[in-house]
């Protein structure tokens, strides 16, 4: 190889059959590709104060220092130091640098996937402004290419690409639900209606666990005179590609949504009640596919609050129970949707009490970022939930309200695990129950 120029060498390696294996080399190359200005500035500006640890439910509830957020980024940090800094190169000359090995990545798989929900609380408190959650997302790109992603997330990604749903659901399952909704509500669920105002996307979790959501929006949109539709071409917008940390898979999933919206010529798309789906389609999507969308993306809570503000949402009666609310990280902290859900609560709840840390400071439920699709992470997921549990105990509500199917499942499972009899309700469903009857 020494006689070859760099160009020839490169050409040669391109001619060679594409390695169809996920290897350490590919992983390291992917890590390198993720090192950009912010990553370099973040690592160089960390003052090792450890404040990020105090923000992370996985560290706090296990007390194990290996769950300190900045430590989770060690593989990316080493790649940066060894390959991008003068100091690292000098250390390299003397054989003093710490290389990233396959064994290291195997060890870090748990730290990067099982013990991080990408909730972004650590990013918010870092005194020098390091976006740790962003770097977790970037590190996962390297982990996937090195073949070190958890099985649960690999399977979810494969199913998402092959069947259109990370849980392997097909349209016929949804068709059954549509049937139920139509029978029980006496309303038509619009499917493949070109020119509707909104394309509504669902998550598999909603279809299977919370079918009442579909019924609720059917009723609300009928009540408010909103035109909407589902698409048989694409009904799911959760993005397993984002959670596993691979932009190729993620982009394909986003393209499906764009194609469906373009076919139906809708100006607005409603993300599922799933926090990660929302940030994936709302914030990462256009960057992933490299072009702007021809439509706008909303969370259902934003749409409902708009309807409320314009007087199109007429409700009657009040919930009298003591209700409290969990803000999904992706909605509140990462997307700034905070006041909207409170406005809607104000419509129907007369006894609402905030958790102590709420809005952008709320604690993660522990299930996001793919943790819930990763069976191995179950004990950690429950450990992280103890933070939420303690918060809930502090205000002892009679019911909890939320607006993300993953959070809701986690809250239900967690409360049951700890024998707390506090039912969890979806905000959209609660609004639907209070609509003024049409005459």
């Amino acid at each position, binding site marked *: 190889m020494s006689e070859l120029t760099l160009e020839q060498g490169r050409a040669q390696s391109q001619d060679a059959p594409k390695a169809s294996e996920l290897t350490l080399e590919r992983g390291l190359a992917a890590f*390198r590709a993720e090192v*950009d200005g912010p990553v*370099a500035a973040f690592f160089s500006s*960390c003052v*090792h*104060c450890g404040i990020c640890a105090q923000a992370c439910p996985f560290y706090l509830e296990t007390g194990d220092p290996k769950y300190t957020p900045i430590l989770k980024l060690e593989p990316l940090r080493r790649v940066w130091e060894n390959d991008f800094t*003068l100091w690292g190169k000098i250390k390299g000359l003397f054989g003093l640098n710490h290389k990233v090995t396959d064994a290291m990545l195997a060890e870090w798989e748990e730290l990067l996937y099982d013990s991080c929900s990408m909730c972004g609380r650590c990013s918010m408190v870092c005194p020098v402004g390091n976006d740790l959650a962003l770097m977790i997302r970037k590190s996962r790109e390297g982990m996937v290419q090195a073949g070190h992603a958890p099985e649960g997330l690999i399977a979810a990604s494969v199913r998402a690409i*092959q069947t259109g749903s990370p849980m392997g659901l097909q349209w016929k399952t949804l068709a059954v639900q549509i049937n139920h909704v139509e029978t029980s509500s006496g309303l038509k669920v619009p499917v493949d209606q070109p020119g509707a105002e909104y394309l509504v996307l669902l998550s598999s979790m909603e279809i299977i666990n919370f079918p009442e959501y579909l019924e609720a929006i059917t009723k609300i949109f009928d009540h408010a005179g909103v035109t909407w539709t589902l698409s048989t071409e694409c009904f799911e917008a959760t993005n397993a590609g984002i959670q596993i940390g691979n932009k*190729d898979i993620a982009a394909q999933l986003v393209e499906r949504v764009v194609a469906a919206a373009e076919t139906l010529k809708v100006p607005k798309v409603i993300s599922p009640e799933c926090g990660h789906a929302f940030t994936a389609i709302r914030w990462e999507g256009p960057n992933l596919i490299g072009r702007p969308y021809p439509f706008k993306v909303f969370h259902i809570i934003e749409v409902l609050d708009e309807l409320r503000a314009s007087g199109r949402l007429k409700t009657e009666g009040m919930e009298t129970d003591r209700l409290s609310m969990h803000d999904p990280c992706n909605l509140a902290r990462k997307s700034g949707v905070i006041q909207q859900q409170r406005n809607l609560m104000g419509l129907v709840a007369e006894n609402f009490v905030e958790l102590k840390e709420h809005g952008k400071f709320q604690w993660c439920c522990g299930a996001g970022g793919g943790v819930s699709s990763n069976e191995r992470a179950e004990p950690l997921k429950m450990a992280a939930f103890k933070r939420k549990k303690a918060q809930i105990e502090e205000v002892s509500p009679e019911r909890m309200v939320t607006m993300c199917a993953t959070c809701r499942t986690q809250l239900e499972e967690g409360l049951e695990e700890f024998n707390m009899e506090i039912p969890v309700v979806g905000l959209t469903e609660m609004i639907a129950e209070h609509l003024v009857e049409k005459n």
Partner: protein
Amino acid sequence: MAARNPTDKTLGESLRERGVSRRGFLKFCAATASMMALPPSMAPAIAAALEQAKRPSVIWLSFQECTGCTESLTRSHAPTLEDLILDVISLDYHHTLQAAAGDAAEHAREQAMAANPGEYLVIVDGSIPGPDSNPGYSTVAGHSNYAMLMETVENAAAVIAVGTCATFGGLPGANPNPTGAMSVMDLVKDKPVINVSGCPPIPMVITGVIAHYLTFGRLPELDAYNRPMAFFGQSIHDRCYRRPFYDKGLFAKTFDDEGARLGWCLYELGCKGPTTYNACATMRWNDGTSWPVEAGHPCLGCSEPRFWDAGGFYNTVSVPTSASGVNVLAAGAAGAIVGGAVAALAKKQTKTAVAHRQPVTVEELEAKL
């Protein structure tokens, strides 16, 4: 200036008397609305409220300071000091600006306090030698700063601390703090204290806070340091026009290199923008002419607590403060070394890495199951 009776006139009347046109006034209201991130539709509401508002009595106390904050305020443009401050509020007492001296001046303060109990605003610039300090360190008319502050705020509606000295102790409070200087919020616990920090603060922020108070009858929403969110809600870095260079890893290395000439990010020259909350990047200085980073100088972080003790102006943010313990010191030394090396971020390397990135296929993933 002699004490005026603030109950005399409404603001609208008083402004018109001064020859401020209705149009000029509305323009000011629109500017105020946008400054405070209120929807433009709020402008008429602000106008209506200000028209009817009585000029609140304001007592301005200057303690251990350099007069930079007053200098900053007198250089405000929209609205000008004359149009707004002297007319919209009734500035009944101001050490630096008032013509009266000696007894007459002190009487003006007492008179304003007696005439408007529970309603006047107190603006403070400068820090205060605390109750345990020698009262002789700083006095006005024979009263210690501490005694004067406590007496004046007793019947005030609210206190606005202006400038980093009043908000966080500032230069007088810097290590070793010989006069035991304290901030207003360290001392005043039973009155709303709103902090307009900055060394000096942005003049329009001062007028904006007053306009907000007059319009809505309450203080604006505050951050964890009691600063108005509308102005201090975002970091310098969030709004910096050099940010795209930061994101691309393009940093000026010296003040006169190629990067500096091309307008690259000043992070490595010590810019504190990432940890500093202020409105410089959006409102700029001198009637919107420019601001430090635009003039080629890194942000010093003047609006943050411990401004003077937070390490060298030209050290990158990776070098932490010196005064908070051995651990942080050690980390700081390490940080400085690594910080020096961030310069070596090889952009070409990233580019090659990105160009040679191999896309992942679902088959490859499936093979892992």
